[in-house]
């Protein structure tokens, strides 16, 4: 499978602030990739660099095999839906959709109309009069209907209600199945998108701390629950991602177990429970649990 994004040793500093610190990863063609992490982790900066809207301090970026900065042949294949897109002052919603085909060669007006109906977007209203959720919906429609070979959604659904978010996931999956393309989805609603992702990249304080196939990442940890002594004996000197206790009970999250180890845990009267992608990321990016690991 060919590679669409290839990043190597990428750093970005704003004055004294290190937004990205020696980041390297690659994303294969036609994958839906989650770019996850806490506020200020560097997600938006990374997407600005990948789309040629910022200059890197050091390191290299190749998109479709070339640097994105001022490379028309790369940029015309990219759609970047930003968290807070601004439009010309007197633009109505219909002007947004009328101008989209100028920028996106793959624009499907019929699909856009269907999505406008789905999201109930008032097309005659001025963009600045839209609610936060409606503004997000406009971005989602542009992102989906542009069918760009590489589409970035940066927190695309601020203010979108649960129905509209579900509509977004359903339309994304349907259209992706018919028109495969590479999608980078940055979001804080990890549980909601977890099953849509094939590839997961997690940034924390400007560094990549998780980069792998979603299936592998999802099954990379397990929580052991039971009487404190039994849990401690079972966990032994395995690295603990988090540890909680109440009374004589303890709950410790550790790396995934083999099936023999799972049987051993069952025989010791311990309960094993899965760790969701969201929980895993909380454990890995929560500074209090990191201090715990260092002190352990």
């Amino acid at each position, binding site marked *: 499978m060919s590679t669409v994004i290839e990043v190597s040793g990428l750093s970005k500093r704003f004055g004294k602030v290190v937004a990205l610190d020696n980041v390297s990863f690659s994303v294969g063609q036609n994958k839906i990739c989650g770019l996850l992490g806490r506020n200020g982790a560097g997600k938006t900066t990374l997407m600005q660099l990948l789309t040629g809207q910022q200059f890197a301090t050091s390191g290299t970026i190749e998109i479709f095999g070339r640097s994105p900065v001022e490379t028309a042949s790369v940029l015309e294949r990219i759609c970047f839906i930003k968290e807070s897109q601004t439009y010309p002052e007197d633009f109505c919603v219909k002007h947004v959709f009328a101008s989209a085909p100028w920028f996106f060669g793959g624009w499907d007006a019929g699909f856009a109309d269907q999505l406008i109906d789905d999201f109930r977007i008032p097309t005659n209203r001025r963009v600045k009069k839209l609610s936060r959720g409606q503004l997000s919906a406009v971005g989602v429609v542009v992102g989906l209907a542009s069918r760009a070979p590489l589409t970035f959604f940066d927190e695309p659904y601020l203010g979108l209600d649960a129905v509209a978010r579900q509509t977004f996931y359903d339309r994304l*999956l*349907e259209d992706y199945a018919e028109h495969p393309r590479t999608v980078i989805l940055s979001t804080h609603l990890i549980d909601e998108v977890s099953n849509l992702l094939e590839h997961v990249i997690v940034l924390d304080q400007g560094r990549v701390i998780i980069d792998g196939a979603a299936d592998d990442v999802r*099954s990379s940890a397990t929580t052991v629950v039971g009487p404190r002594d039994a849990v401690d004996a079972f966990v032994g000197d395995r690295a603990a991602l988090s540890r909680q206790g109440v009374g004589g009970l303890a709950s410790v999250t550790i790396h995934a177990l083999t099936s023999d180890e799972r*049987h051993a845990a069952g025989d010791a009267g311990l309960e094993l429970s899965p760790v*969701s992608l969201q929980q895993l990321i909380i454990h890995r990016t929560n500074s209090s649990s990191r201090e715990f690991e260092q002190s352990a």
Partner: protein
Amino acid sequence: MDAMRPIFIQIAQRIENDILSGALLEETQVPSTNEFAGFYRINPATAGKGVNLLVDAGILYKKRGIGMFVADGALARIRANRREQFRDEFVRPLLAEAAGLGISRAQLADMILSDTNKEEGVA
């Protein structure tokens, strides 16, 4: 879904369950990977992994240009596999829970036998 197992394995098990229950008959077509992905709201590549697992196990086979079909003998093969896993998946946890509650093996056997008597006629 049972979050303990990877999603692609859960998809494979769902399809197996449908074959076991008779919802999917041998030599009939199963939904496409994209249809599974849409229905369960999962990534199509994940759904494809689940389907491929069953292709490798000889449960499904591909007809070029048409789609996936349930293989001849799939039902018997799934039954045989599930019977092998029965002890680990069901008997062991049952014994562990019974031991925790102080139910003796003899009492447990009684319970099972009296339950099967109620369902007389069921093989």
